């Protein structure tokens, strides 16, 4: 065998185990997800699988709005008020169940509503739980990405100082990263607990008892925020290390030059540090975004997606439907939607952070 042919052969041979494994367990399942999302495939089913077109996506993404007027007393002509003095509205099921005037609302569920005073604008979805999951995922990402990214940078600047024993602090801040998210989620249930939770105790200790405890995870107003706090706490050490590595690639002479030309600390950061961190910034941005969209373990363990679906997420729903209810097709449709969403966000980020020159 001549040398070139031998190199050709060895190239394919040595790459082939990895190629075959990636094909079998990543690329083919990825295309299968697309395929399944147009069928009614189930994990175990006596019936043959059928092609159902866009039915899964229709169920996933159908949204309608409906404006409903308050109930008026027919005799007095005044609004009927409830005990709290609020206007009352007709029940939604009058519109969504067997109402020939509203055929497009048949079978839809309430997602949320705005009461404007004159009337109520109701948003309905065929799969209202999924819509809540989508909203929670987006809120989570919008808060976590800037918060975790900037806190990690501040930590990195802090532990980048030349101080004795600074390595101990780097190690401690990084520690939550190596502990399993499953374990940390269970521990944080204690911290957020409504009865004598550690967080409640701590706040009441700091405020000398001037704080009434609350059930952080049990209240739909604070549950997602609590999961955000815990997630940032866990992940910030990881990105601190990434920023730190970026900081250490910036040559020291640049700082010397800046300080010779009279730059203050902020100007040094603005004109030396920040431009030098550009490649790191892009990496941090993209990795936190991907992690944030894939949020699953924390809600699964801390809240099971509740209360009132306030912490369920896109991946949580994909697992609930695909595995919990064994509806592979619908779970795949959610996965496909998730993939497209992540891809679009990644492309937008890529575009916004492109090299100007």
């Amino acid at each position, binding site marked *: 065998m001549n040398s070139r042919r031998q190199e050709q052969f060895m190239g394919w041979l040595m790459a082939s185990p*990895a190629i075959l494994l990636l094909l079998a367990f990543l690329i083919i399942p990825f295309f299968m997800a697309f395929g399944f999302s147009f069928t009614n495939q189930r994990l175990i089913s006596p019936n043959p699988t059928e092609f159902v077109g866009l039915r899964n996506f229709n169920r996933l993404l159908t949204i309608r709005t409906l404006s409903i007027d308050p109930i008026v007393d027919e005799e007095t002509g005044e609004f009927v008020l409830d005990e709290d003095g609020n206007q009352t509205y007709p029940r939604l099921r009058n519109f969504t169940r067997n109402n020939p005037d509203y055929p497009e609302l048949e079978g839809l569920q309430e997602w949320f509503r705005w009461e404007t005073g004159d009337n109520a604008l109701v948003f309905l979805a065929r799969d209202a739980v999924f819509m809540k999951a989508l909203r929670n995922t987006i809120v989570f990402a919008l808060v976590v990405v800037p918060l975790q990214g900037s806190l990690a940078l501040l930590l990195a600047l802090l532990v980048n100082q030349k101080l004795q024993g600074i390595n101990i602090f780097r190690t401690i801040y990084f520690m939550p990263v190596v502990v399993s998210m499953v374990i940390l989620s269970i521990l944080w249930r204690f911290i957020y607990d409504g009865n004598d939770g550690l967080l409640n105790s701590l706040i009441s200790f700091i405020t000398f008892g001037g704080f009434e405890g609350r059930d952080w995870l049990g209240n739909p107003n604070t549950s997602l925020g609590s999961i955000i706090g815990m997630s940032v*706490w866990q992940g910030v050490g990881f990105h601190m290390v990434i920023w730190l590595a970026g900081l250490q690639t910036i040559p020291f002479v640049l700082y010397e030059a800046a300080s010779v030309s009279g730059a203050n600390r902020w100007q040094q950061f603005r004109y030396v540090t920040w431009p030098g961190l550009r490649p790191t910034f892009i990496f*941090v941005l993209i990795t936190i975004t991907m992690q944030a969209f894939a949020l699953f373990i924390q809600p699964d363990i801390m809240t099971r997606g509740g209360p009132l679906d306030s912490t369920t997420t896109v991946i949580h729903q994909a697992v609930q439907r695909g595995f919990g209810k064994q509806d592979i097709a619908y779970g795949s449709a959610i996965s496909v939607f998730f993939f497209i969403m992540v891809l679009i966000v990644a492309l937008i980020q890529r575009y916004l952070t492109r090299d100007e020159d």
Partner: protein
Amino acid sequence: MFAENRLGRFNGLRIFLTYGFLCVLGLIFLFPIVFMIVSSFKPDLQLLRDTNSLLAFVPYGDLSLNNYREAFIRVPVLRFIFNSLIVTAVTVLFSLIVNSMAGFALSVLRWKGRSLILGVIIATFIVPFETVAIPLLLVVSKLPMLDFMAFTEGGELIRWSWMNTYHVQIIPFIASAFSIFLFVQFFSALPRDLFEAARIDGASWWQIYRNVVVPLSGPVFATVAILNFLPMWNQYLWPIMVVQSEELRPIMVGVAYFFQLGDVAWGEIMAYLTIITLPVLAFFLSLQRAFIESIASSGVKG
């Protein structure tokens, strides 16, 4: 002289405040883990009572190893640890071999199709495991498996499923686009003269890989091993989906056992969590420099 002295005192105060701030932050990152370890020695009643004050972090009162004894009775702890060790070790070992070979082929060797394959592998970065988990579940439930136990017992050669096995927890995680990428980067930076010289001496490409490249590449092997170790040891979603039999379950799935049986015994849970966390923490602390450098190198070059 005077000015210098003032500056010195000012610096001293600043350093003192900096250390104070660093310590407060350290407490914020440490307290849940301290709480876990301290609580694992306390009886349930005291554990739950203590959470309403800072006593939660103080090892006092009726401390004992009872929780640990009970945890071992409730859950086959050693079995689960053994399973996780097997799955993690085998996956990491094979991932080093398979991904480094691919990295070598994709960076050192010149062959047709190389840049296409590299492009496809990089493109798979964007596919999160979560999006393929559901279809993959169906795939492994349908994959044929040669099962010699089944053959000897029932006379049937093929069992039509990969569910409930070790290899269903291992094989899907061996190849990793990111690991291949790290190897490609490292190998590309090695001087090409080295390979040319070895070729002239009559070494085969396999010998060059085995005797030249691998011995020179300790750091990248350490990085890939560490980056693959953590997610494997902490596997949760995938084993829940594909492993129903107790003999094959990994440690994280064992956590669910403590929540299933009506009365939740928090002391036992803390003991179990401590048992499965301490090995990782010990591993991390003994290799913390390598750990942190691995993570850092994955970011700077990426």
